[in-house]
């Protein structure tokens, strides 16, 4: 049984934030969930997908976040409790659905989880998704800890049903990827079949209907505001003269700082957990006792703007600080020491933190950047593309996935990326705007997510570029989740379809389609050269399973290799491939057999044929 299905009420478990959120959803009676994987949200979905195989829960990996949100929206409008789970930038993809779903509303509780990533530990931006609450008019909840996240998910479903609107549940990496002790509640029986009651004048959003629905949404917003005013998740601690308004993970930094600075008597804390609509009356009454206020929130000055507006309405002229050069930044994540330092300065308190060691006499420590794995098929494909395009002036749009790491030397095969699917569509623009050869890269999951529409555009508008689709049989970057091209039989799963990328590419009208096996280097280079010569849209599908995935499925079968005496130290293996299984020992190239996966790409690259199989 999955550990999150434990029926031991009141049992204490150490859970990852994402596991606590999954458990909270189960305790709330989640019936239908959908997701597109994305760090830092992925473990919620991984847990719920596993659990769906041994419970009444239906959970799917959708092709993208918009699809996931729409699947969940329909379920919620049949009266079921549903959830759509995504990383922050995923909500951009789903935003079209989100905005009008807010007009339509829901019947059963629906929670949309957005996992924000301040500091961009694994994201392309650090946008603050609280503004989606303002933009859509939907309520937002933000937990401050792992155990609170579990309880708050249940509250989110109740709130959604009360308001008949989906609720945005906003986390940040430090909630998703923190662990804490959680007390289990009951998992109720799940209502798995709902019913859809036809009511086109509430559901079919033609202008005449939507004009009424917008009125309804504003009415719901007013109700949400009165609930926010009294929500147990908007809480006040202390009664000192300096007000501190904080949210999410920052609340913990504030609490610890107040304790470290021993300034409990000097401060009054307003922790906002229900952040849209902001509790106006509560904030106004909070401000009354304060002679100044500090707003502590990562990201944008979302609460700060609201607090300042409320103060203005009250005719208050007290100092309210948040984002400013001498207080907090809009950049990156905060830390306990930073919050303590700013708070100490704001209160004119002296505090000597433990001294950070002087590292000036420490020699430079070699960097350890992430790298494509030993035996990664992307490395082989990049090498092939590089050889086949030798001498050409190229522009290389890439996409979101492990292969974005192709930007690093020695490959240096990435020139432009903004979001999922943009490799294909920016290729259209680059090829029209320049006379250079445009070569782009997209992974299999990303192709299904948002590459297909771009490819159709390219065919229709007769663009001129070569797109590599890197089909490694899984969604590798986020931890090997399924995608529509995956062979679910390998995961012992039945009842799934499977879409062949080659069929899709041919069906949308691409005339020049080449399928390569990237571990056959020479043959692939010749095939790719031909694709590059084609005027128009050409597609190269590079098919080879992700090495880590193959290893986990026990499908890795290649022999391991060693560098023999024939090595004349050309170092093409190191300088052109950069496989991390290689190392230099007293100036001589060697292969770490523990890392070698037997892809044999180096064998084909070595000019002396010096790399030989290990006799085992």
């Amino acid at each position: 049984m999955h550990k999150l299905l434990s029926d031991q009420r009141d049992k204490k478990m150490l859970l990852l934030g994402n596991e606590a959120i999954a458990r909270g959803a189960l305790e709330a009676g989640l019936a239908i969930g959908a997701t597109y994987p994305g760090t830092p949200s992925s473990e919620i979905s991984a847990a719920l997908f596993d659990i769906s195989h041994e419970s009444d829960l239906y959970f799917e990996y959708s092709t993208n976040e918009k699809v996931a949100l729409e699947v969940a929206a329909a379920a919620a409008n049949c009266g079921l409790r549903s959830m759509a789970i995504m990383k922050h930038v995923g909500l951009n993809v789903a935003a079209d659905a989100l905005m009008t779903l807010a007009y339509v509303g829901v019947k059963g509780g629906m929670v949309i989880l957005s996992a924000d990533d301040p500091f961009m530990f694994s994201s392309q931006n650090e946008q603050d998704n609280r503004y989606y609450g303002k933009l859509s008019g939907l309520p937002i909840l933000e937990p401050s800890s792992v155990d609170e996240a579990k309880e708050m998910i249940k509250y989110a479903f109740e709130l959604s049903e009360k308001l008949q609107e989906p609720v945005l549940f906003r986390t940040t990496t430090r909630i998703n990827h923190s662990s804490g002790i959680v007390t289990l509640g009951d998992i109720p029986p799940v209502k798995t079949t709902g019913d859809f009651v036809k009511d086109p004048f509430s559901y079919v959003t033609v202008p005449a209907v939507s004009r009424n629905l917008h009125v309804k949404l504003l009415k719901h917003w007013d109700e949400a505001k009165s609930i926010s005013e009294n929500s147990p998740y908007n809480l006040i601690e202390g009664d000192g003269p300096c007000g501190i308004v904080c949210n999410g993970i920052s609340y913990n930094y504030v609490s610890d700082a107040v304790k470290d600075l021993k300034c409990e008597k000097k401060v009054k804390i307003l922790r906002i957990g229900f952040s849209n609509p902001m509790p106006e009356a509560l904030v106004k009454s909070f401000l009354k006792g304060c002679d100044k206020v500090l707003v502590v929130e990562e990201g944008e000055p979302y609460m700060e703007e609201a607090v300042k507006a409320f103060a203005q309405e009250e005719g208050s002229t007290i100092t309210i600080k948040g984002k400013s050069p001498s207080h907090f930044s809009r950049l990156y994540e905060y830390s306990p020491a930073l919050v303590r330092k700013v708070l100490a300065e704001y209160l004119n308190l002296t505090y000597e933190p433990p001294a950070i060691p002087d590292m000036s006499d420490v020699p430079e420590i070699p960097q350890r950047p992430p790298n494509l794995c030993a035996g990664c098929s992307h490395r082989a494909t990049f090498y092939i593309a590089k050889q086949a395009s030798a001498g050409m002036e190229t522009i290389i749009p890439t996409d979101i996935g492990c292969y974005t790491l192709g930007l690093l030397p020695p490959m240096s095969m990435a020139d432009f990326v903004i979001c999922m699917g943009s490799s294909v569509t920016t290729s259209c623009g680059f090829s029209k705007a320049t006379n250079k050869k445009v070569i782009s890269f997209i992974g299999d999951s990303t192709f299904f997510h948002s590459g297909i529409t771009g490819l159709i555009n390219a065919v229709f508008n007769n663009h001129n570029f070569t797109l590599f689709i890197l089909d490694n049989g899984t969604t590798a970057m986020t931890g090997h989740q399924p995608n529509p091209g995956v062979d679910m039989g390998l995961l012992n799963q039945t009842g799934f379809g499977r879409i062949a990328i080659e069929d899709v590419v041919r069906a949308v009208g691409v005339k020049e389609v080449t399928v390569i096996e990237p571990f056959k280097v020479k043959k692939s280079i010749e095939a790719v050269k031909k694709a590059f010569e084609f005027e128009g849209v050409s597609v190269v599908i590079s098919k080879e399973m992700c090495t880590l995935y193959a290893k986990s499925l026990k499908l890795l079968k290649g022999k391991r290799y060693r560098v023999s005496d024939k090595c004349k130290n050309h170092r093409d293996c190191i300088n052109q491939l950069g496989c991390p299984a290689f190392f230099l020992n007293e100036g001589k190239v060697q292969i770490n057999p523990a890392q070698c996966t037997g892809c044999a790409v180096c064998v084909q690259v070595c000019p002396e044929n010096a790399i030989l199989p290990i006799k085992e």
Partner: protein
Amino acid sequence: MNTTRVILVAVGGQGNLLASSVLGEAALLSQIPVRMSEIHGMAQRGGVVESAMVFGDAKSPVISDGEADVLVGFEPSETLRALRKCNDGSVVITNLEPLPPFTVAIGKGVYPDLNELQSLIRAKTAKLIAIDAVKLAREAGNELSVNMVLLGALIQTGKLPVQAETVKEVIRIKTKQAFVESNIKAFDLGFLAAQRENK
């Protein structure tokens, strides 16, 4: 309750997430409040994995520079890199077997000298316990039990309010059955090695 802050730093694949999870479960069994945070993501792609564990009453699951009471490094150059987390009162435990980054393999960096590395750490902290954890792991029967060796050494320092027996109990329940015996042995060898260093 006093707060104790521990940083565990490793290279992806060295098993520090299992080590921190065992330690966290042991704290739970000992009824000690514990919060942890870790940065996942690119770990499997050869990057650094850092977990922070906060025992006691503090609410933050994150440890700022200069504020770790104990630093456990699974790889010597990563221990040195993470030294910014320490202060002059910190205890540092490090494995001595290098796992040179690829940048060194291709000649784009120089791996620090191990003796110099140890004296630098000694000079900047209260105590260094340096052990060849890979050798001890092999002795325990499983080269991959470096994480358990280091856990043993960490518990021996007495810096954490968690007993060795409790940690071993968690190892028995939470680690793969086939490895329990070698994991326990690795834990004990790490404990003894730290004891010798402490004399």
